[in-house]
């Protein structure tokens, strides 16, 4: 009980702190981070416009104080001007950035040859970027990508400060194609909330190493809001308590994202398109400083493949079958609730006056929005578990689908017997989204825009889908339906302290965590041969009855004399 109160308290404190710290940096409208019902106070605070000054910048051990640089001691009219100033010294930075998928939003899977990246993939959250660039590209590390005419080679289009500034005042507002606002503006529209224009001079002078808040300014808000997408990445990681993230706890190890995603020349290692599922038998763990292609962001790259002490040797025998994350991230969304389902098919309901509707669930989370449809949220979620060998296959826009079945937006390949798979915890995000009911392919809706065709302005699917597909330069039959979809996300962040790791019986029991994992025999799970069990117990029982009868007979014979 006491520990529960402690957890609740620490969540409350963390929630409030995080809210205060990140209120400036949030690029998307953050739903109130409603957590446990006990935390009624936290959302209230979080919802307040954060007027508190950003905490003083911690003394850094860098050899350069950018506030003393002449190039930065001027008034910047636009963000690209800041970039130009950066590039006067950091001559190669933009060239490096322009080679990364953070910039191209494109990734060719070397194994499957599928063309992925945000530019191409259709997911089951906001669905697709195409035709909605102005809005979605608030999370592009560039300026001005609003349509296919964007110049990917212009160096001043690279946004340096979103990843390097430390004032917490720099915010890329959706709708501005990746720019910050240059004058105070109301966002979201009609919300009464004012986003202040950042002081670009101060922002430029504050630059340093990329912090959790920098990465988080986009990655915490994936899927259109705080904690929506991943379940293991949200704003509670800006300053997480120990129970939430044993590596990132500020008073403890205080890891930044880059401690694991050890970046060189702006190439950030680690990928969901081609993850390293099993860093075990085939390759030695990555060693920092060693020149090779191994992934430094796996658990094994620091902990090795036998991380448990000798007295727990049995656990080391599990590492060739089970991903570390399976036991060490017992639940995800431990900081705040994550979105679990999104049903686009119900979007577009309006009041009799033709106004859009929003509804909240009992915990105060968005449950319905005319723009987006129905949602459900969950916190402290027990993951689903699958064999995973790192190979991911996507249902792309041109992939034929079977509308009578649940369409897997991405499917994780793996099995007990391929020798490359481990059992991984995953978040499965489920929903319904538009598809072309003649050609049986996924559709690109045009959601955001001031024009007549965007769904968010006129709630008309016909126009929205036609415009979206036209922008994507793809054929559309004109007939649409809604298909059930599933998308899988590996759970790998928010590693819990060891005391919270799964215990043996949470899997080795009937109806345990791994009850649906096939292809292996697990003691205690009830994988037993039913015939042997039945036969064994029956013969044992008959033997017992036999000897008891024999004994009774002897006693009777004795009495009789």
């Amino acid at each position: 009980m006491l520990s529960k109160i402690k957890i609740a308290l620490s969540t409350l404190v963390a929630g409030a702190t995080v809210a205060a710290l990140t209120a400036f940096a949030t690029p998307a409208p953050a739903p109130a981070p409603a957590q446990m019902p006990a935390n009624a106070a936290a959302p209230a605070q979080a919802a307040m416009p954060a007027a508190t000054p950003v905490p003083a910048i911690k003394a850094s051990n860098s050899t350069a104080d950018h506030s003393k640089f002449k190039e930065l001691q001027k008034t910047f009219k636009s963000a690209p001007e800041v970039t130009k100033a950066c590039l006067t010294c950091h001559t190669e930075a933009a060239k490096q950035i322009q080679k990364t998928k953070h910039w191209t939003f494109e990734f060719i899977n070397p194994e499957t040859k599928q063309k992925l990246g945000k530019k191409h993939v259709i997911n089951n959250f906001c669905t697709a970027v195409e035709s909605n660039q102005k809005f979605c590209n608030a999370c592009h590390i560039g300026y001005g990508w609003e349509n296919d005419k964007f110049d990917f080679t212009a160096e001043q289009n690279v946004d340096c400060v979103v990843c390097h500034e430390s004032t917490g005042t720099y915010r890329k507002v959706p709708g501005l194609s990746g720019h910050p606002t240059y004058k105070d503006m109301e966002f979201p529209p009609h919300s009464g909330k004012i986003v202040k224009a950042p002081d670009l001079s101060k922002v430029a002078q504050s630059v340093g190493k990329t912090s959790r808040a920098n990465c988080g300014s986009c990655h915490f808000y994936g899927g259109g809001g705080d904690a929506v997408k991943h379940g293991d990445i949200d704003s509670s990681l800006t300053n997480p308590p120990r129970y939430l993230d044993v590596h990132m706890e500020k008073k403890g190890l205080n890891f930044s994202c880059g401690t694991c995603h050890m970046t060189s020349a702006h190439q950030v290692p680690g990928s969901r398109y081609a993850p390293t599922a099993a860093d075990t038998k085939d390759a030695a763990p990555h060693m920092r400083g060693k020149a090779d292609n191994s992934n430094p962001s796996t658990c094994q790259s620091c902990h090795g493949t036998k991380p448990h002490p000798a007295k727990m040797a049995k656990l080391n025998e599990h590492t060739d079958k089970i991903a570390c994350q399976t036991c060490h991230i017992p639940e995800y969304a431990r900081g705040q609730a994550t979105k679990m389902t999104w049903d686009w098919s119900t979007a577009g309901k309006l009041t009799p006056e033709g106004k859009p509707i929003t509804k909240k669930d009992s915990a105060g989370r968005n449950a319905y929005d005319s723009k987006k449809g129905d949602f459900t949220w969950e916190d402290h979620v027990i993951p689903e578990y699958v064999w995973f060998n790192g190979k991911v296959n996507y249902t792309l826009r041109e992939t034929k689908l079977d509308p009578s079945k649940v369409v897997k937006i991405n499917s994780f390949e793996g099995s007990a017997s391929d020798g490359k798979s481990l059992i991984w915890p995953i978040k499965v995000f489920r929903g319904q989204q538009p598809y072309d009911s003649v050609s049986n392919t996924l559709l690109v809706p045009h959601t955001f825009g001031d024009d007549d065709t965007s769904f968010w302005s006129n709630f008309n699917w016909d126009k929205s889908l036609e415009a979206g597909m036209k922008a994507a330069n793809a054929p559309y039959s004109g007939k649409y339906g809604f298909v059930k979809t599933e998308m899988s996300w590996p759970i790998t962040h928010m590693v819990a302290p060891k005391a919270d790791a799964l215990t043996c019986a949470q899997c080795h029991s009937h109806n345990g965590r791994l009850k649906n994992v096939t292809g292996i025999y697990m003691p205690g799970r009830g994988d037993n041969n039913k015939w042997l069990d039945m036969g064994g117990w029956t013969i044992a029982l008959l033997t017992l009855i036999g000897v008891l009868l024999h004994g009774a007979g002897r006693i009777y014979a004795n009495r009789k004399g």
Partner: protein
Amino acid sequence: MSVEKIYVFKLFERFWHWSQASLIIFMLVTGFEVHGSYHLFGFAKAVGYHTIAAWTLIGLWIFAIFWHFTTGEWKQYIPTLEKVEAMIKYYALGMFTHAPHPFRATQLKKHNPLQRLAYLGVMLFIGPLLWFSGWFYLFYSEWNAWGVDKYVSLEWVALFHTAGAFFMLIFLIAHLYLTTAGHTPTSHIKAMITGWEEVE
């Protein structure tokens, strides 16, 4: 009918018997919990206890094998079919009619023919079945290094190990009862405690 006492079980033998008996019972209890038949210690502890007991029993057996060969006592287990029929008749009928026991224990022949067969079966069949399957179970993560992972599956190893456990359980039930089938209901038990058996 005179009753005399003969010294049949030496100190080490009695120590071996009772420690082995406790270990086997304990391993049945913990083993069937690991199997998933019930909850008692909890899975993690059951596995830990079972493993410790297994290594202890292995240690005990090394001593026991050494003892049997140095003392020549292994000959006590040479099987014979002589009087087997008589023994079966005695258990089936004779015991109820106060017929004399067809076997008289001596220091050279302390087990009756059925005991010889049963104990030999335990040592040559049930024992090895449990040992080998148990070892494979214990060294599951080494299969790859040993190069046997293609030929052995945990499912079959567990199946054999569980089958062995059922045999052992059935033996135990019968054995516990037959300890009362001596000259008097307690004479076998007393012998296994004190070493001295009452014989007719």
